[in-house]
């Protein structure tokens, strides 16, 4: 069906036709016609952020927590360049978002016009795909294709650059059709390879599931299948930062997160396993440690929808290209049809070994004295919120790792964090996006004071839309992770890792009309957290914590999984010259 309308109206119509109900944006000269079209309709709610970076992270939080693509609308030039960090973040974490940017009119492109930037040029390496639309008649098909590309295969961010004259001009609007584009990624895995994996599973003596964000991106059905498979095989399971929640933290087979700040038992199991079943993870350097020592005695299988993830870093013995949900379904079928076999005696011995590692209790800590340990703060937050309908976002740094270690995630899509890019300033706007998608749920951003300040302007957004997001700030007056690395690597010379001139967070909250809570005494913590939870509105929780606490366990740079530093380890000389060049 074809209808006549302006380009600006097409944008709104396409969003409606694609099922979008919320967008995040910031107006400017080159998107005024689209904002005018938004003004004249009631289908789509526009959330006015305070900075374009906030719009993109909010859209990421919305997308990650709802399994729907997030949408942003920003203006040309600085609007577009401010979106670049969020686009890159979404690219590295495979989050489906659609960013619409205004552009100067087509006849002014290339003249260094006011607020002109080569947006498609700048964003080409940080989007899955992008388009500059020069004709209004082409706009609707590009808009629909953008949704198809962002959400198909390995999800990712896309950008559409729309010159202002294209927004004003009238043209033909076409409703969405099933995509006829060439881009149709493979979702079904090769059954021969799947059978090969099943054979390996039947024989494995020390098997391990290593799961990642791909399970969550594949949708809730994939998480369900994963739980069935883990339950039926009794294999242990660990997950990357991005995959937390796909398998419940309370599950019997859960070893906790693996990687640089992962749990001892998870990393030791990775090192010692004889069959590694990678499901939707990408052998990130935070996971592998030093490549040459990575899980030296295992057969490695990898299920990934992106062929480029296979053999990129780690050579894989059984590669399976396909969507996690589809492949797990076939895997279950094949495994069941062959008699649901595992080497249960050997797996039992494997569990005995794992139980010994678990007995070390690598996350234990002692809260004593009158200073709150960050681990204690998160343990109390966990205890007091775990029965809530809860969503957690984080900023980036020590607090992020502690949150991953001390909070338990029972379901997918409940944990929003910047994994690949490590974007400080992600968590607060992401929490706003999550709350927009889940108005009745408890949304907490676990933050550090330095990260939080990077997008603090979004407190205005939270107030304007009455979004009761809880900002749980572990305030150590330090860039904690930077400080930790300086302690380990740079002779305790704390160059610029000290948060000088911090604001009074309670007054800051009050300046925006929000509630501020200060807590510095462990004995007051529970009551203060309850006060935060009971307040119907945004809360800035300034939790003053131990300033020089290090985040452990830790695999030092350049070391293997079985060379972890535990909490009480002597950290001097833990990283050698070769490791120190790594990030």
């Amino acid at each position: 069906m074809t209808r006549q309308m302006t380009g600006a109206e097409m944008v709104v119509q396409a969003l409606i036709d694609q099922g979008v109900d919320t967008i995040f944006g910031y107006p400017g000269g080159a998107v005024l016609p689209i904002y005018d079209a938004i003004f004249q309709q009631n289908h789509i709610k526009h959330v006015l952020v305070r900075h374009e970076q906030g719009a993109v992270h909010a859209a990421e939080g919305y997308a990650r927590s709802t399994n729907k693509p997030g949408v942003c609308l920003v203006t040309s030039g600085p609007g577009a360049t401010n979106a670049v960090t969020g686009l890159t973040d979404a690219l590295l974490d495979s989050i489906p978002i659609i960013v619409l940017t205004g552009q100067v009119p087509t006849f002014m492109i290339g003249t260094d016009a006011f607020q002109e930037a080569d947006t498609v040029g700048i964003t080409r390496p940080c989007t899955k795909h992008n388009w500059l639309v020069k004709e209004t008649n082409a706009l609707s098909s590009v808009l629909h294709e953008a949704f198809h590309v962002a959400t198909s295969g390995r999800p990712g961010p896309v950008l559409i650059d729309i010159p202002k004259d294209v927004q004003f001009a009238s043209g033909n609007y076409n409703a969405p059709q099933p995509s006829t584009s060439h881009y149709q990624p493979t979702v079904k895995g090769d059954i021969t390879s799947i059978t090969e994996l099943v054979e390996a599973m039947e024989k494995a003596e020390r098997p391990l599931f290593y799961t990642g964000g791909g399970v969550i991106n594949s949708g809730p059905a994939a998480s369900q299948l994963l739980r069935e498979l883990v339950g039926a095989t009794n294999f242990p399971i660990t997950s990357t930062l991005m995959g937390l929640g796909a398998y419940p933290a309370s599950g019997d087979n859960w070893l906790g997160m693996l990687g640089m700040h992962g749990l001892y038992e998870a990393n030791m199991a990775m090192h010692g396993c004889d069959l590694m079943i990678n499901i939707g993870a990408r052998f990130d350097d935070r996971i592998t440690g030093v490549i040459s020592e990575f899980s030296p005695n295992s057969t490695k299988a990898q299920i990934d929808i992106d062929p480029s993830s296979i053999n990129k870093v780690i050579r894989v013995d059984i590669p399976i290209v396909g969507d996690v949900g589809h492949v797990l379904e076939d895997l279950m079928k094949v495994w069941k049809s062959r008699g649901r076999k595992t080497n249960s005696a050997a797996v039992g011995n494997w569990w005995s070994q794992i139980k010994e590692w678990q007995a070390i209790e690598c996350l234990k800590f002692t809260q004593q004295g009158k200073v709150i340990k960050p681990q204690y703060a998160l343990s109390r937050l966990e205890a007091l919120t775990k029965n809530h309908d809860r969503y957690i976002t984080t900023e980036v740094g020590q607090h992020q790792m502690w949150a991953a270690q001390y909070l338990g995630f029972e379901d997918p899509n409940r944990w929003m964090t910047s994994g690949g890019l490590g974007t400080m300033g992600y968590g607060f706007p992401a929490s706003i996006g999550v709350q927009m998608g889940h108005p009745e749920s408890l949304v907490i951003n676990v933050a550090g004071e330095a990260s939080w300040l990077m997008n603090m302007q979004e407190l205005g957004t939270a107030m304007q839309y009455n979004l009761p997001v809880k900002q749980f700030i572990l305030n150590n007056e330090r860039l904690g992770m930077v400080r930790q690395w300086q302690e380990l690597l740079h002779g305790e010379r704390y160059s610029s890792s000290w948060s000088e001139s911090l604001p009074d967070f309670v007054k800051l909250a009050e300046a925006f009309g929000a509630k501020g809570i200060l807590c510095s005494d462990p004995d007051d913590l529970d009551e203060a957290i309850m006060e935060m939870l009971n307040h119907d509105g945004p809360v800035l929780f300034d939790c003053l914590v131990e300033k020089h606490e290090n985040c452990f366990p830790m695999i030092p740079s350049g070391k293997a999984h079985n060379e972890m530093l535990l909490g009480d380890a002597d950290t001097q000389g833990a990283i050698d010259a070769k490791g120190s060049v790594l990030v």
Partner: protein
Amino acid sequence: MSDLNLKKGTSAKSAYNLRPNFSDIVERHTLAVMVENEPGVLARVIGLFAGRGYNIESLTVAEIDHEGKLSRITIVTTGTPQAIEQIKAQLGRIVTVHDVHDLTVEGPSVERELAIFKVVGDGDKRVEALRLADIFRANVVDSTLKSFVFEITGAPEKIDAFADLMRPLGLVEVARTGVAALSRGI
């Protein structure tokens, strides 16, 4: 890739030997990449190579199907087998890339390049340049009393050889198109 420090055969249980056994030897591969002929597509391909640190030895691009809006990019690249596999996979991820063919591994192929050479000189050198051009089946496409412009087509090695011979005879300027390649047979 050598900085990955991968040990070969680290695992007795590993089925590495069932898979392509990646070596550290740098190979030269010719890739034919079929792309949608849309603005920016070449920038996407080049940006991929620059951004991920891959090598480009030569690159040619032209539209080959106006109706179907298809262009063919021929890239000659070098890298370890693992790097080459990764290059192909990364090219395949680009939304507007339709197909990636590795002509080096997909069977015999023909590679051709066109080059034009300006050779300035007189006397014996000029005669020798003309004689060698004849041997190489190069055509004279421009001539003055003191110079020739030769046009030559052939495999890159042939053009390299011709350039080596022309250098002492007064070679002053070269323009090469880069490699165009097709698989042999049907």
